[in-house]
């Protein structure tokens, strides 16, 4: 088991030193476009979830509402205004991120290969505190979570468009099984993102050294 993800890590880490030989200084763990997009996205996500909870409370899908104190907007009209203002930041920034991720090779380098089996093995190792953290290299659990939250965010945007424009953008609404179902898809996309956020923030709190590189860039480790 050690061997299998040791190999994966080795294969992952071999690309950066070769590039460094040409470019001189060591690569940042998080290049600047990623850092800018990360914090713009953080703002957008907080605003979208907070205002979304307020909108949910106007017509709850389930037998509960979100406490008023943790929602954004104060009332339905303002919450919708915040939601429909920050949707542009979420979707625009997200679109840039996807284009940049594919064009720069970021997704291929950081997220590939995706393996559920390996993620499960590494979760076991992490729970036994046997999973090493390598700066700038994502383990299988991280790769799966980060790829998963991108899918959830894309689903949130598509289901959001399906609810916002069920007539003009009917193809999104039809794709998701109609307006009624699209509301549930939108809700559960939020649940997935919120769940990711809880794990994400917990891990940052437990391993706070990962935070400065997301602000200042940091330096990737040499291959070991």
């Amino acid at each position, binding site marked *: 088991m050690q061997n299998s993800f040791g190999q994966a890590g080795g294969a992952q880490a071999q690309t950066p030193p070769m590039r460094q030989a040409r470019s001189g200084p060591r690569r940042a763990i998080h290049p600047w476009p990623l850092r800018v997009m990360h914090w713009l996205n953080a703002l957008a996500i907080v605003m979208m979830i907070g*205002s979304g909870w307020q909108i949910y409370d106007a017509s709850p899908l389930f037998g509960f509402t979100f406490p008023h104190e943790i929602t954004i907007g104060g009332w339905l009209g*303002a919450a919708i205004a915040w939601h429909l203002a920050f949707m542009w930041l979420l979707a625009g920034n997200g679109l840039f991120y996807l284009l940049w991720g594919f064009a720069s090779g970021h997704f291929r380098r950081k997220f590939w290969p995706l393996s559920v089996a390996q993620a499960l093995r590494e979760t076991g190792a992490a729970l036994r*505190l046997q999973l090493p953290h390598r700066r700038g290299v994502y383990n299988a659990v991280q790769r799966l979570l980060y790829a998963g939250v991108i899918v959830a965010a894309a689903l949130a945007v598509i289901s959001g468009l399906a609810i916002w424009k069920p*007539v003009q953008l009917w193809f999104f609404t039809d794709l998701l099984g109609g*307006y*009624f179902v699209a509301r549930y898809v939108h809700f559960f996309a939020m649940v997935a993102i919120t769940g990711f956020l809880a794990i994400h923030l917990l891990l940052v709190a*437990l391993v706070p050294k990962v935070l400065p590189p997301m602000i200042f860039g940091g330096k990737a480790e040499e291959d070991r």
Partner: protein
Amino acid sequence: MKKLDLPRRKLLGRALALGAITALPACNYDDPANPDLADKFLLAMSRWNDRVQAALFSRHTLAPTFSAAQITEPPRFNAFYDISQAPVVDPASYQLELSGQIQEKAPWSLAQLRALPQESQITRLVCVEGWRVIGQWAGVPLGSFLKRIGADTTCRYVSFKCADGYYSSIDMESALHPQTLMALDFLNAPLTPAFGAPMRIRIPTKLGFKNPKLVISMNVGNVYTGGYWEDQGYNWFSGS
């Protein structure tokens, strides 16, 4: 295993900073007459969203229609007052007043409106709150009525005033959409007061609050007149 060193003060500081950001938009549009910075930002974005929705809108894209079996029973009442307070307009003395860029401004009685060709549709009404109902409305297509009275359809707005003090306005493109009705009937019977009698505007390509009930006057013009909810912060176009 590395010892965990939580910088608690830093974390607390960050949590507080995050709280401050989210507290900033704690409550907006409190006082529409005196917009603060956040309100101005939201209004600017709302005007932008109006333009995007107008660009997305097509008179040829029809709202979905449904079968009689899918009609929501009982229909759901919604207004800014309780159902018991819905005003009753006498159908015999009802007059639809016309004003603005219209050639023939003579008021219309209910009997005159009923004498015009009627259309029936089973469509979905989506509320801004998120819920939706399916109903059957019948009445005069607004586009054909506007042409009949010689309205200038190059104008930007069609505005409505209602017997209950409600008011709203829509873009001309939506007014000319083939599914936009001056509805007189619901489920093959005349509208009841709570659901807009004697006449309501039914627009399946817009949210429910853009479907004014108890309409007593109509204006065609180029001056933006807003609406009851729109003036409090709801997006004006609110198309579906």
